[in-house]
């Protein structure tokens, strides 16, 4: 049983992302925003499996998360782009530098996804009070980037180590 979980850790953790996304614990929030959970999984996955895999799983993640949220705005473009970019990043041998890199990369990914979402929202509500949406959107992006960058060093390095371990076991 233990071996089963170790071998399929990446897939099992993938299944849990939407659950964490729905869980949305308020005590982890900042200005009403939450860390962008899918990036914590996507970064280690893409770093290990490469750009193409990152792109594909970015799409998969986007599809699942879009099904959980409202219809009109999609997370797919942001996640696919992030998956592709993350795949091009090499794993750093220096553990400490690696930790901070995860934080920075995830924060950058969060800016990217947030900006793409905001642009979709602005485009959709072009006629209505655009400036108000823009200000609250900017606030959302900043809060999300801060939280994602803060948590990424802890979560990503842990997940990356687990993924690498399960991969070694598989080979």
């Amino acid at each position: 049983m233990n071996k089963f979980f170790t071998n399929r850790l990446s897939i099992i953790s993938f299944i849990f992302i939407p659950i964490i996304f729905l869980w949305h614990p308020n005590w982890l929030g900042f200005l009403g925003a939450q860390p962008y959970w899918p990036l914590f999984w996507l970064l280690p996955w893409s770093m290990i499996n490469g750009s193409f895999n990152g792109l594909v799983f970015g799409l998969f993640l986007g599809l699942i998360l879009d099904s959980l949220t409202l219809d009109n705005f999609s997370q797919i473009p942001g996640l696919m782009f992030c998956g592709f970019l993350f795949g091009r990043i090499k794993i750093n041998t220096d553990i400490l530098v690696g930790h901070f890199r995860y934080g920075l990369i995830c924060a950058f990914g969060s800016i990217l996804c947030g900006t793409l979402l905001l642009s979709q929202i602005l485009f959709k509500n072009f006629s209505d009070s655009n400036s108000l949406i823009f200000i609250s959107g900017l606030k959302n992006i900043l809060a999300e980037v801060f939280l994602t960058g803060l948590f990424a060093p802890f979560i990503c390095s842990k997940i990356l180590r687990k993924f690498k371990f399960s991969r070694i076991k598989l080979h």
Partner: protein
Amino acid sequence: MFDIRRISSSRWWHKKKSWIFLGIFLFLVFVRISKGSLYKDLFYFISKPFWPGQFQKEVILKSIDQESLIKLNLIKKDNIRLRKILSLQESSNNDSISAAVISRKTGGWWRQILLNKGSKDGVEVGNIVTGPGGLLGRVNNTSLFTASVTLLTSPESKLGVWIDRSQTNGVLVGSGDDLPTLILYSKDADIKVGDFVSSSPASSLLPPNIPIGIVQSIDKTLQSKKTAKILLLAKPNLIDWVQILKENI
């Protein structure tokens, strides 16, 4: 050589009694410095059940609640009777489902809540969801066991409302923060801070007269429209149980 060591037990700090006295002394000094606050607070808790006004206040509040409830029922009956006479839509119906909020996204990009009742329980897309205080949003989609609700604060939400005092119709648009925007398509529209906003009888999406919020601030008048920020009466970030009104308009 001289042995000048004394018997240790003869020193005052070796006596337990001295320490007890010192402790009491320090405590009294503390009481003095704190001006008896410790005692006063203790008395506050001890005497609380015996306060004369407390029970009286409860009794009065209970009576006021009962009176309000009776008045509300009478007004409801009157309202239904008058609406029948005028052949207007019913403002309320009893065909509602209670549901618990199982997931909540009230900040960030997605402003929605997930309820524990779905299509199995008869919930349909477009059903109205209300909570303590008033309107929360509309059911956006349903699964077998759950229903997701687009909150009024979501940028996706656009509903017809009106200002009760001046009976001016407008559109309530979510702007992605906690205060949705009311747009009135007339620059001379009569609106004041503190005005009560409820669902419009002209709305095709909502039953009329569901309380929504209060005008918190009025923005600068644009070329052909007035906008205002609305403070919602129902707080989706706090509410755990909601009512789903089954009948669509």
